[in-house]
C-alpha cells in the first residue's frame, strides 16, 4: 500500500503544466518505476502525484525535417528499443535501453523519467551524454532547451525548475551523423541490475585516424559525465592500441569514482580504463575503421 494523498492525471502538456503551476507540491509520475520505489522505501510520504501517462503526444519518437531526432519523454524503454529510427541512427541508445531492468520494467519505465530521476546509474544517461542530447522543458510560461550535461547537478538532483516538465529528448544531426558508437553496461547481472559502470562511446573515423570521439560514463562519478580530456587527446590521433590505451588512461582522469560496498574506486577506475578501450575498439570497426589488435 502506497502513501498517496492525491492523484491527478493530465491528458495534454498544457493541462499538466497548468496543474503544476497551481500546485507546486505535485510530484510528477511517469512510468513510476522510480517514484513508487521511493514511496515503498519511505522517502516520499503523503505524495500528491501528477501522472503524465495519458499524454500520448509525449510517447512519439520522430525524425524532424532537419535531421533532429526527437524522443518524447514518455517513450518507454521498450518503445525506444524497438524504434527503427533510433536503431538505425543511434543504436547506442537502443542498446542502453535493452540493458535496463527486465521486460516488465522496460514496458513501463520512460526515458524522461530515467533522466529526471537524476541517477548517475541511469541506463540511458551515458549514451545521451555521448550523443550531446538536448532536453526540452516546458512550463506554463514557456519552454527552454538544456544540454544534458548541464541538467545533471548531483545525485538525484536535476536542473528542472518548479512548474517544468521534461517533454522531449533531442539529438541534433551534427551529433550523430557520421558517428558510430558502442555501449557497454557493466553490471553484476545480465538483467535486473544497476550498472557498476556504463560506457557509451561514439566516434568518427577518417583515414585511420579519429576525427572525433565522445565518451559518456555512468556511475563514474556522482552524475553521468563526459571524458573531455580523453576526447580532446583523441582528435586526429592515428587509431592504434597505444592511442586507445592512452584514451583509456585519460578517461579515468575525468572520473570521480568512489569506494562503496558495491565496488572500490580502484576497481571502478580500472573498469573505466579497460571498458572505454573495449567500447572504442568495437565502435571503430562500426565506423568503418580497421580492427585494433
Amino acid at each position: 500500500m502506497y502513501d498517496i494523498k492525491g492523484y491527478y492525471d493530465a491528458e495534454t502538456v498544457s493541462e499538466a503544466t497548468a496543474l503544476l503551476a497551481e500546485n507546486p507540491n505535485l510530484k510528477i509520475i511517469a512510468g513510476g518505476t522510480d517514484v513508487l520505489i521511493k514511496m515503498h522505501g519511505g522517502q516520499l510520504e503523503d505524495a500528491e502525484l501528477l501522472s503524465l501517462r495519458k499524454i500520448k503526444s509525449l510517447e512519439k519518437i520522430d525524425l524532424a525535417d532537419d535531421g533532429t531526432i526527437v524522443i518524447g519523454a514518455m517513450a518507454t524503454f521498450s518503445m525506444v528499443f524497438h524504434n527503427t529510427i533510433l536503431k538505425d541512427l543511434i543504436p547506442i541508445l537502443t542498446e542502453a535501453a535493452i540493458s535496463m531492468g527486465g521486460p516488465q520494467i522496460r514496458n513501463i519505465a520512460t526515458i524522461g523519467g530515467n533522466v529526471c530521476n537524476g541517477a548517475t546509474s541511469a541506463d540511458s544517461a551515458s549514451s545521451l551524454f555521448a550523443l550531446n542530447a538536448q532536453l526540452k522543458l516546458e512550463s506554463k510560461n514557456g519552454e527552454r532547451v538544456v544540454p544534458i550535461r548541464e541538467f545533471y547537478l548531483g545525485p538525484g538532483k536535476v536542473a528542472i525548475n518548479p512548474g517544468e516538465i521534461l517533454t522531449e529528448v533531442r539529438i541534433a544531426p551534427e551529433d550523430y551523423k557520421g558517428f558510430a558508437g558502442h555501449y557497454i553496461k557493466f553490471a553484476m547481472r545480465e538483467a535486473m541490475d544497476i550498472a557498476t559502470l556504463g560506457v557509451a562511446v561514439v566516434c568518427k573515423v577518417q583515414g585511420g585516424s579519429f576525427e572525433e570521439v565522445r565518451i559518456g560514463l555512468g556511475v563514474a562519478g556522482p552524475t553521468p559525465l563526459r571524458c573531455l580530456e580523453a576526447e580532446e587527446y583523441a582528435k586526429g590521433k592515428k587509431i592504434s592500441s597505444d592511442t586507445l590505451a592512452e584514451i583509456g588512461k585519460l578517461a579515468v582522469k575525468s572520473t570521480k569514482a568512489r569506494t562503496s560496498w558495491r565496488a572500490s574506486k580502484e576497481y571502478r577506475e580500472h573498469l573505466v580504463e579497460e571498458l572505454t578501450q573495449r567500447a572504442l575498439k568495437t565502435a571503430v570497426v562500426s565506423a568503418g575503421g580497421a580492427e585494433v589488435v
Partner: protein
Amino acid sequence: MAYTVVGKSVRRVDAVAKVTGKAKYTDDFSERNMLVGKILHSPYAHALVKSIDVSKAKALPGVEAVLTYKDLPDIRYATAIPGIIEAIATDDVTVAELKYGTAGHPYSLEENHRDKEDRNILTRKARFVGDNIAAVVAVDDLTASKALKLIEVEYEELEVLTSTDAALKEGAPLIHDDCEGNILSSHGYEIGNLEEALQESDHVIEGEYETSIVQHCHLENQVSHAYVDSDRRIVIMTSTQIPHIVRRIVAQSLGISWGRVRVIKPYIGGGFGNKQDVCIEPLNAAMSLAVGGRPVRLELSREEAMIDTRTRHAFKFKIRTGINNDGKINGIHISAVSNTGAYASHGHSIASSGGGKFRYLYPTKALKYDPITVYTNLPVAGAMRGYGTPQIFFAFESHIEDIAKKLNLDPIEIRKKNVVKEGHVDPLSKNTIRSCSIRECIDKGRELIKWDAKKALYKNQTGDIRRGLGMACFSYASGTYPVALELAGARIVMNQDGSVQLQLGATEIGQGSDTVFAQMVSEVLGIPMYMVHVISTQDTDITPFDTGSYASRQTYVSGMAVEKAALEVKKKVLAFASSMTDIPAHLLDLKEQSVVFKDSGEKVLGLEVVAMQSYYDRVNAEPITSDVSNNARINAIPFGVTFTEVEVDMKTGKIKILEIYNVHDSGKIVNPLLAEGQVHGGVSMAIGYALSEQLLFDEKTGKPLNNNLLDYKLPTIMDTPDIGAAFVEKEDPTGPFGVKSLGEPPIVSPAPAIRNAVLDATEVAFNRIPMNPQRVFEKFKEKGLI
C-alpha cells in the same frame, strides 16, 4: 524393477492449478475484517531497550493494538483475555519472559537433545538490526506503518559483534547472558587416531576456506494470518514447510497446551529451509490475542524477510590432510567456525549435519571434526538447502583440488581413489552404504563435458579470456536418521469409483512431493494418476502427523509411509475381492483399475465394483481406508558430482559459466522431469552462492547493506547457463521403490566445481566465495595479473 508409473515424467498434480492461478496461497485467503500487523525492528545490532512510549501510536486512529515485551497478551490466565481462552498454565513466568526455540526439528523427549530456547516473541534486548522490539495491529497497512513511526524507543547501545572473531574475543560482551564466550556449542567428533594417521602420511597439506552469508530468497515472503475460532483455539494459516512443528512452537511460545493451536498450510511459494523455522507465527498469534482474537495478517516485505527470517551460516574452515604419494588420504582434520547470528535457531545442528554428511564420501582411517558455532549480532542463521554441506564441501572439494595440484595428481583420480564403496558402515551413525554409484557418476560427468579433449585444448592459455574445467563431488543423506526422529504419516480413503484421496503430513513446497507420492499410490493400486487426489493442504487438525518437508526426506521417508498406506489399501481391496469371489487373496493383484489374477493378469473384478461393495454391502460394508505412520530407522546415502567449464575475463574479473552438469546417484528416479527441475533449481542457487550472492553488513554497526533484490545479486535466468542434469539410477534396497534423496543434493557441489574450474583457467585459487568481479579483481591484482 519394472514400474508402470514410477519412473515416468508424469505431469505435476498441481501444474494446472498453479498455471491457471487456481492454486491458493496464504495471502489469497481472507477473513472478514482482517486487521494488519506490522513489526517495529531494532535499528541497532546490540542494544538494551531503556524505555518504550507507545502512547502516540495508540492514539492514531485505526490502530487497534500496540504490543511490546511489557504487554504481550498472557492468555494463560483467565483474566488476561476474558472469555477467549481460559487459564491452562499457572507457572510464574510471563509470556514476555518465556523463551522458546524456533528450529523446525521434531520435538525430543530427551531434554539435552532439544534446540536452544533463546527467543522471546518481543525482546527487551536487541541482538541484531531487525530484532523485534514492538508490533502494531491496525485497520490497514498504511495506518500500521504510520503507527510504527510513532513508537518512541530509547535504546542503550552495546558493543556490536559482527564477526565471530569479535564475538570470541576475551572479554567480549555476552549476546545471551547464559552463553559463556558466545559459543553456542563446540560439539564435534573424532574417528581413529588423527595424529598417528598424519604422521604415517607422505604429506600433510593445509588449507583455509571461507563461505559467506546468503539468503534463500523464496518467491513468497513469510506470510500468515491468525485468529481465535469459535472453539476458542488459535488458528494460524501460514506459509510453512512444517505445520505440525509450527503448532508446537506457537503453543510453547505462548505457554499454552499444544492442542490449543491449529495450523493450516496451503500452497507455498518456496521455502528452501527458511520455512523450516518458526519466524512470524508466534507474534502473529500474539497480535490476534491482543485484539480479542480478531483475524490479523502479518506479512513481511522482502527487505524484512531478508534480515528478519533466517540466513545461511557463514563458515571459516581450517583443514589439514595427511595423504600418501599415491593419493590415498589417511587422515583429515577439519576445524570450522560457524556464524549463527543473534539467535540459535538451527544453530549447531548446521555444523554438525555438514560434518556428518561429509563423512560418507571419503572414509579415512582418521577424521577429526572440530566445529564451533558462535553467536554474533547479525541476522539469525538457520536451515537452508544443504544444511551445512555446501559450506563443508566447498572447503574440502577446494582443498582436495589444491592437494591434487600440489602433488601433481589427477583431480579425478585422487577422488576416485578415496571415495566410499558399497558396504561401508559409518562408524558414528552406523548407517550403511547400501548403494553407491559415485564412480559411475564421475565417469558420466567427465564424458558429458568432454573433459579430456577440453583439458588438452586449454593448456597454456595466455589471452584476456581464459577457460578452465573443474569438478567436485558430494555425499548427502535421506532424512536425518539417526540424529532425529523420522516419522511420517499418510492416509488413503478409497471412493466408490475406486479413486482415492491421499492425505499426507509431508508438505508440498514446490519440490513436487505431492506428484511423486501420487505416482507411488498409482503404482501400488494399479490406478491411473487422475484417480489419485492428493490433498495438498495440511491442517494439523486433520492431516496425519509428519514433521514436515526438510532434510530431503519426503520421497524417501514420507514415501515409505505412502507405500505402506497404499499396500494396506491394496491388501484390503484384495481381501474384499476375495470375500466376493472366494478366490484366495494371495492369488490376486491390482492392475489397470481391476482386480486380476496375479499370474495371468486375467481380470476378476473391476476395482469400482469392489469399492461400491465396500460402501454398500448390507452385511460386509466397510469402506476401504488406511491411516499409517512410519518410523524410518534407516538412511540411504545419495552421491553426486558437478562438472563445469568456465570462462574468465582476466581484465574485468568476470566469470562466466559455459557448461555445467550435475550427475546424481539418487537411487531410482520417480519422476525424471521433476528430478531434472530439482537439479536445475539447486545448481542455479549454487551458482549464485559461488559467484555473486552475499548479504553484506556494515562491520561497525551491523546494519544490512543490501537486503533487497536489486543489491543482493541473486542470479537471473539471464545469468544462468543451460544446466545439464543426469542420473545414474541404481535402486537403493532401503528406499521405497529404490529411491534416495534429491531435494538438497544439487546445491552441494557446484560452488567448489566452479572454483576449481577458475583455478584451472587462471592458476588462481579462490578460497572464499562468492568470487564476484570485485574480489576477482583484487586477487588478480595481488597476483600481478592486472
